[in-house]
């Protein structure tokens, strides 16, 4: 019944559970024979497998391959140049500046969206009048396109005619033009506010789904034991939701690391590269400067970083199953 059967299923060759160790497993005999017995099963996954090999598997290997070549845009050819692309990138000051921006963007977007989204889930989870309408409204930002979101926020932030600047002036908070997206200091916080707006509903919906799995008895038992709502939250809710929390955080982190549309449309990485991110750099290198080799090497660096995070993701996914297996 488990959703993620990596470890609880007895067929897992990696982590046989205790029952398996007591009874010898006859199924290891002949892999080919087994595959032959199950050939019809594979027909069900074949279409999914085929498109994934074509659209995900092949490009992955091709990126790695291309990252070892120089691809001068003038000739269109390619010359093997070993790890030159990588050393060029890692030795450039620009790379480290962009890395700093990327982390600033990713970490703050993730944390703020998570806190707001978790809060939203806790509030929305209670019964109150108009609850489903409130939930619907809160989900709207998540559903609309990043492109529409980017234009609305750009319009709100507009330094001459924007809503934000105009309101602040009308309320007498400032009497100067509010310059956000054109200021190297304020561009990142402004982008993060727009991005969090787009993302917090995702956290809300994931945790809302998670909260529904917290058994009522647990909460009641905690209350009988004299726990106030903060204690309940810390000692019952959070431990119960640990897996959902970790998965949501990781997915958010990865989404932000790969976020392109919002920043590309709102600032294009400017002003003066103040909002230049890895993803935007890769895109510009490949499709503006047409330096595919260099851009591929950059992708590989990002990819290796992702693998590290992916490791934690899988650990988080399987951790729940191990605990369940033991319980």
């Amino acid at each position, binding site marked *: 019944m488990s959703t993620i059967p990596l470890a609880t299923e007895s067929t897992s060759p990696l982590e046989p559970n205790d029952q398996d160790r007591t009874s010898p497993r006859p199924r290891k005999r002949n892999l080919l024979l087994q595959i032959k017995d199950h050939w019809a099963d594979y027909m069900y996954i074949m279409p999914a497998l085929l498109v994934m090999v074509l659209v995900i598997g092949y490009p992955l290997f091709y990126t790695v391959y291309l990252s070892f070549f120089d691809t001068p845009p003038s000739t269109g050819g390619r010359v093997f140049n070993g790890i030159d692309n990588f050393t060029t990138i890692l030795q450039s000051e620009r790379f480290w500046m962009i890395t700093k921006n990327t982390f600033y963007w990713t970490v703050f977007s993730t944390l703020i969206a998570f806190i707001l989204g978790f809060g939203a889930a806790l509030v929305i989870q209670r019964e109150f009048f108009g609850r489903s309408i409130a939930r619907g409204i809160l989900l*709207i930002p998540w559903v609309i396109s990043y492109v529409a979101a980017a234009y609305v926020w750009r319009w709100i932030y507009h330094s001459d005619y924007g809503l934000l600047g105009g309101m602040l002036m009308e309320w007498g908070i400032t009497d100067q033009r509010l310059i956000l997206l054109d200021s190297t200091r304020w561009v990142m916080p402004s982008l993060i506010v727009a991005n969090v707006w787009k993302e917090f509903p995702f956290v809300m919906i994931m945790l809302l789904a998670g909260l529904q799995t917290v058994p009522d008895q647990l909460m009641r038992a905690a209350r009988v034991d004299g726990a106030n709502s903060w204690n309940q939250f810390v000692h019952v809710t959070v431990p119960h939701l640990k897996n959902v929390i970790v998965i949501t955080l990781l997915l958010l982190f990865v989404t932000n690391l790969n976020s392109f549309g919002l920043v590309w449309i709102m600032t294009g990485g400017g002003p003066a590269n103040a909002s230049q991110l890895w993803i935007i750099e890769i895109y510009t290198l490949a499709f503006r400067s047409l330096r595919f080799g260099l851009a591929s090497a950059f992708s590989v660096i990002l990819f290796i970083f992702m693998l590290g995070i992916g490791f934690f993701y899988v650990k988080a996914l399987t951790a729940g199953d191990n605990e369940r297996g033991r319980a």
Partner: protein
Amino acid sequence: MSDSTVPAPRKRWRPGMRKDQIAGYVFLIFLLLYALIPMAWMLSTSFKTQFAALQQPPRWIPTHPTIAQYKLLLSPFNDVGRDFLRYLLNSLWVSTATTVLGVAVAVPAAYAFSRFRFPGRNALFFTVLVRNMFPLVVFLIPLFILMKNLHLVNTHWSLILTYLTFGLPLSIWLLKGFYDNIPPQLEQAARIDGATRFQAFWLIVMPLSSPGIIATAIYAFIQAWNEYVYALTFLNNNKLLTLPVGLQRFFAEYSTNWPGLMAASFIMSVPVVVLFLLLQKHFVRALTEGAVKT
């Protein structure tokens, strides 16, 4: 532990509870404003004239509301409207094809992962999940080259194929949760009555898992409808553009026409917002039963 102090915390707990209820409502109002203001401002601007949109201080209710921008965008009798309606149709076609094909591919795969115990099952399912981790833009360069070699650049099929594949991991994951909850005995009973394995699947399991399929389909549709980077890269023929890229094209040409841009953004948001609001219950349920079940 301390049973002698049971009444005391009860007393402290009640007023504490009320306080965080108030805090909760304040927080909720803040969130609602945060979520709504940009959308409301989008709508408000879209009913203004170009001149009124540039007025300071900003006005929420336009003094002379006009639907001129909507007329312009949705009328096939002028250049702007013709382009916009074409983008709309392109988006509709790409999203629908992605959704239908995506579900057709994901359903049997999810079913197999849920029911059958074939060698390599865990390894394959694992691969499907790990895909969630990989940045889409990393695939941009090689996919562009692949599509060029397959002569699919500047066709909608390049997008459909890409969106459908990128949506698969989540679809399979969600659907598998649903199939896990349908007792296999139902199919076994059908098999005893003489149904083939496929018939048992098609006639018994499919109808029961329709909420999951609906949730998966909405998600696939919304993703395809909103996608921007791949559409930007794979298409450069104005006739083929989807809405997000078309909107950007519109902005490049009429960069001071904010009411027009906001009206276009609003029209673009309506289908997905309506679709999602109508079916959000299915979606939350699919997540509860599939993705986050603990």
